[in-house]
């Protein structure tokens, strides 16, 4: 059982980790992330990278939808902007990856601000549709602006590089993706320790009162869009380096729904939830594939039945979590943790 302790300073009281136990578990977690690629086979490594990219993008969408209350179906479009930015700059300039990724984030953020403009007037479903329209429009640009995007064929790019080191394998990409994911989740955590994060939550909870209390709604809604799409842009850029090809079909509309599902399943307005949701949603299709493979010897028709299962499961998960566990996986996680932190005195 853990014992609460009184803090000596406000700094200590507002630290992210407030107890040695928390620090210990987090250090262990970081160690596990470090050791994982050394132990994992190619397939697990591939999954690890995918989860890392998904965590970044889900965290971004969580800032916008979970914390600021603005539903967006534009995440795939913003990731596309990031992906194409990285592809174009690495093909045409040979800039190293930290620069191209930064540019990917910034360009996506700029597009995000434009797409967010209607958010002052429309909310909820209408905003979802407005962002969906923006996403369709971006998809159209990816497909049609051939001189820049390569049209339907897309762009192939060289591996990421920095100081003469190239990151052509999943193993090496892992060491870009995962540290960046950790860093960006922490940055998001920091935002919610400051006035900007409070403004986002205030807008989500009661926008009219928030405005009367001094929060400029347009400014902070756009800031949330910018931040969220910056995350999406970086995730899209990593996606481009990871697959080394981007086409319009790399960023389909279903991807936006995937990220919205990850936020809902994980727990809206909870950063840990975003991480859990991203991992969970990335792994479900893989589990389904394994299941199909296991069934095929007995039912040769299994792939026919199983292939549409993915959409059905995604849909069922969204509806199921919204109804039965609106606080998502994060809440389930907290329940488990409470159980252990109070054990053996109560259960």
């Amino acid at each position: 059982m853990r014992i609460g302790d009184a803090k000596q300073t406000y700094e200590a009281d507002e630290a992210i980790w407030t107890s040695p136990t928390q620090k210990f578990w987090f250090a262990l977690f970081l160690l596990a992330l470090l050791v994982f690629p050394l132990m994992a086979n190619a397939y697990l490594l591939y999954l690890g990278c995918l989860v890392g990219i998904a965590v970044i993008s889900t965290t971004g969408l969580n800032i916008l939808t979970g914390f600021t209350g603005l539903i967006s179906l534009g995440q795939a479009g913003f990731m596309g902007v990031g992906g194409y930015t990285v592809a174009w700059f690495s093909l045409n300039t040979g800039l190293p990856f930290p620069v191209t990724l930064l540019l990917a984030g910034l360009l996506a953020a700029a597009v995000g601000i434009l797409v967010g403009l209607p958010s002052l007037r429309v909310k909820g479903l209408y905003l979802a549709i407005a962002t969906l329209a923006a996403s369709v429009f971006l998809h159209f640009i990816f497909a049609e602006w051939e001189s820049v995007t390569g049209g339907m064929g897309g762009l192939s790019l060289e591996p990421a590089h920095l100081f003469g080191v190239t990151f052509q394998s999943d193993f090496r990409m892992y060491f870009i993706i995962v540290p960046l994911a950790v860093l960006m989740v922490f940055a998001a955590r920091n935002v919610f320790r400051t006035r900007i994060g409070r403004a986002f939550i205030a807008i989500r909870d009661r926008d009219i009162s928030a405005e009367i209390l001094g929060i400029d709604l347009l400014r902070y809604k756009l800031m949330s869009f910018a931040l969220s799409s910056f995350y999406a842009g970086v995730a899209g850029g990593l996606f481009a380096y990871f697959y080394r090809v981007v086409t319009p079909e790399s960023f389909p509309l279903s991807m936006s729904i995937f990220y919205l599902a990850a936020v809902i399943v994980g727990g809206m307005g909870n950063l840990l939830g975003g991480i859990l949701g991203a991992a969970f949603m990335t792994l479900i299709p893989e589990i389904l594939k394994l299941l199909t493979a296991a069934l095929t010897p007995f039912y040769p028709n299994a792939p026919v039945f199983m292939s549409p299962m993915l959409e059905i499961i995604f849909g069922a998960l969204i509806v199921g979590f919204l109804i039965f566990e609106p606080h998502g996986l994060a809440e389930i996680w907290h329940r488990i943790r409470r159980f252990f932190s109070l054990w053996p005195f109560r259960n």
Partner: protein
Amino acid sequence: MVFMAGLDYFVCGSGHWPDVYDNNNNHNLLVCEAKTERSWLCFLVPGVRGGILSILEISNLSLSFGGVKALQDVSFRVPENTITTVIGPNGAGKTSLFNCISGFYKPQQGTIRYQGEVLAGVKPPARAAMGLARTFQNIALFRGMTVLDNIKLGAHVHMKSGLLSSLAYFGAARREEMAVRREVERHIIDFLEIDHIRRQPVASLSYGLQKRVELARALAMRPKVLMLDEPVAGMNREEKEDMARFILDIREEWDVTVLMVEHDMGMVMDISDHIAVLNFGQVITEGLPADVQNNPEVIKAYLGNSDMDSLRKKLNPQREVA
């Protein structure tokens, strides 16, 4: 002097505070002198009543929603450093008046002057930054935040840190957050006696405590005019007494003008310096509590034309507020 004691608190926060208070220093002296005989200066001498002592001046304000005339030609003044209360029956337009002052409703006619400046065209957040803080009739706390974060949100307009330093939580952003935390802890949480709940989510609090947290949040806005919409509605007797004491203390120690809407006549008559009565969107009278209390028009507004005795009793309650 009270105001001077208040000064060091603002100095210890972020650097841009003291100048506001310095500008007002000679002014403060004037208010102090005026205070003992405030009623004279503010209400009885026509020349002075409209002079520098009015922090808020509402002239010929009209607001309607379709056919509903929520406010009609409303004019009154809020003398600086008083507790001014707006009373009136349900639907009289009191909350609408607050919403006009906050900038949330746009009156079709009339002007609101704050410290001599016309507010038309000033957006609600800018008004908050100018020192117009408020609480809401239907508690408007942010459910997704703890008590402490709700209060800190009130300081938003006085903070500066941008997105980049927030992402890094380093340097300026961190220092600013800590300064606000210190300020909130020392001068608001202690003062309002809510130390024990600072970590709790607001949804878990009793109604009375939620109202107190709302007051705390408004104080974090460092108000010059503190607008309270029914601060003791729904409270029990003890909570009401606490709230009345807090309001009086705030006026004394924070150099704040209180503009309040309240139905509890005991509290209104006890702590108000100045009362304006609103009925069907119109000001029917304003003045000292004693004058308003016995004004037949007020009694009529409150009681229909019926039973004058019970009405009089309602307007002249036994003193139940300390």
